[in-house]
């Protein structure tokens, strides 16, 4: 049994094909589909306008992203029932991480938030640069935050500062 099954945290060792190469990350934005279990689910495949996500066998197979076709457009993020899709743009420093965020109130553009990793541990601060909450996203807004490049593959959530309506 993996550690993940015991505590719910996905580790790098288990991420394998989820993560694009360093070269690809440096080249342009891309999505990271952190869906590593065989569960019956497929909306991401249809959501991608470029056809970059495939589920090869039956509906229980894990999605595979063609990183050459994916341009990190983020359309699939709100389509994932497991909220397991993130987008990373590590072409510069700071990098940009886009996160599905189903909480209220939404942060504001320019706001400084506390960034959290997959275990919910604080990893530093990030600046909110974009909040998408169009009707088409069906109540799963996408928040893009600027984080230090070395944290692009670690930051997966954030918390608003207590003075901005967040909990401490």
């Amino acid at each position, binding site marked *: *049994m993996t550690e*993940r*099954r*015991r*505590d*719910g*945290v*996905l580790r790098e060792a288990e991420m394998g094909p989820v993560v694009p190469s360093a070269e690809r990350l440096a080249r342009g934005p891309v999505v990271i589909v*952190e*869906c*590593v*279990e*065989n*569960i*019956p*689910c*497929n*909306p991401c*495949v*249809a*959501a991608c306008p470029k056809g970059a996500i495939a589920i090869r066998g*039956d*509906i*229980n197979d894990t999605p595979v992203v063609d990183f050459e076709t994916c341009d990190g457009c983020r359309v699939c993020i709100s*389509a*994932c*029932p*497991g*909220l*397991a899709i993130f987008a990373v743009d590590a072409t510069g420093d700071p990098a940009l991480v886009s996160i599905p965020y*189903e*909480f*209220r*109130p939404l942060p504001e553009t320019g706001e400084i938030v506390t960034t*959290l*990793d*997959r*275990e*919910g*541990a604080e990893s530093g601060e990030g600046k909110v640069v974009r909040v998408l909450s169009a009707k088409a996203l*069906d*109540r*799963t807004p996408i928040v893009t935050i600027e984080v230090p490049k070395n944290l692009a593959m670690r930051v*997966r*959530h954030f*918390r608003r500062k207590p003075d901005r309506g967040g*909990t401490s």
Partner: protein
Amino acid sequence: MRIREHPILEFERGREVEFDFDGRRLCGHEGETIAAALHASGVRVLRKSIRHGRPRGFFCAIGRCSSCLMTVDGVPNVMTCVTPLRRGMKVETQTGKGTLAAEAKGAGSIAGDGSGSDLGTVPLAIVGAGPAGLSAAVYAGRLGVESVVVDENEVPGGQLIKQTHMFFGSLEHYARVRGVDIGTQLCRELEKCPSKLLTGTTVLGLYTDDPPWKTLSLMKNGVRGELRARTVVLATGASENMLAFENCDLPGVYGAGAVQTLMNVYGVAPGERVLMVGAGNIGLIVGYQLLQAAVDVAAVIDAMDEIGGYHVHAAKIRRMGVPILTSHTILSAGGTDRVERATISRVDSDWQPVEGTERTIDVDTICLAVGLTPNCELASMAGCDDEYVPELGGLVSAHDADLETSVPGVFIAGDASGIEEASTAMLEGRLAGLAAVERLEVEVDREKLLAMKEEAASGLSELRAGPFGDRPRLGKERMLALAASRGGDR
């Protein structure tokens, strides 16, 4: 305690009304349940138990247990978790078995002469307007078959109305749609069908002593009636399992379904800080929903050594800082009149608490998500055989691949036929509705019927094909084998 802003839901609350609670004047919203209104006002203790006078709050919130019985307008033993609040109600904490006041009147009036209870006949009666029941009615309706759908709740949709998350599964079968919206869509579909929906109506009994007719004894607003049907689909869902531990009956120990009802139907936060017991999908999902309602989740614990639910559900709460403690159990709840703390400990491989690992955490709510039991009571009354299949959640009515029980023309679908997901419940309901049509021998496009059945059956195999489908798939296989061997005996 009322949730004012929610990322997914907008609460449609009735007008504000005053009511009396033990001589105090409180406010609530018309149409919400008495228990929800009291909870929103901070009242946790609803009654004192009959022998030991222990304080009790509600537990199931769907009218199945007895924790919430109160005296309302002089009538004792009113299930306040399902009784809507009305202006000026006099609500009293009930001690013991309650006293029937001389002037108190029951909800029903003895006006009928006993002969006026005939509700006529229908080809197909469906019990339960959740994902399975609604699907059965819709698919039978698409073949032109009339049905009556009976549900004891005022709002149809079953547990779907409490699900704020997007469903998994296949895009053709509602994946990516939020459960609450699937309920609305199914109800809209139902409106196009020759189907009649009886909400707020309880099925008291099911009798099969006059084949091929099945008689359903119904009750609505304290009035009884009988409906006769050629075929019946039982889509009665499941009940929350109870866990026994010290002070498990303390107000603040709630079933996961009750927490969902309170916060997602009535917009009332169950508490400020919750311990979730159970790391299956329900525990993980309700944990996330609590966070969406701005309620703190102290931890999710599970006695198993691994998380039972999907990783993606676990990951959502982990990245928000909620610990998931596998190999942990709850030893006790503490507090005088309500939960103030919980003591948990590690368990060894035999699920025994490990001494010295106890720790106490401050929480005001303990949410139990420790599994469900299929509701087979009506099938049992109707004389359907049952089998104990642990993979399906315990005692389940024996059924074949068409979901027909041992009583011809009585079908069982959804969680009532084995605990699974709502996506499988919808497909099972479909299959059972179509199989009932087949059993009716009415004039329908047979080829179309068989093609629709095949589509539902293959959809089910697909959903059960992955590792998380192992358990229900094995359970269903065992059930089919058991039912077949029983069939041979007859």
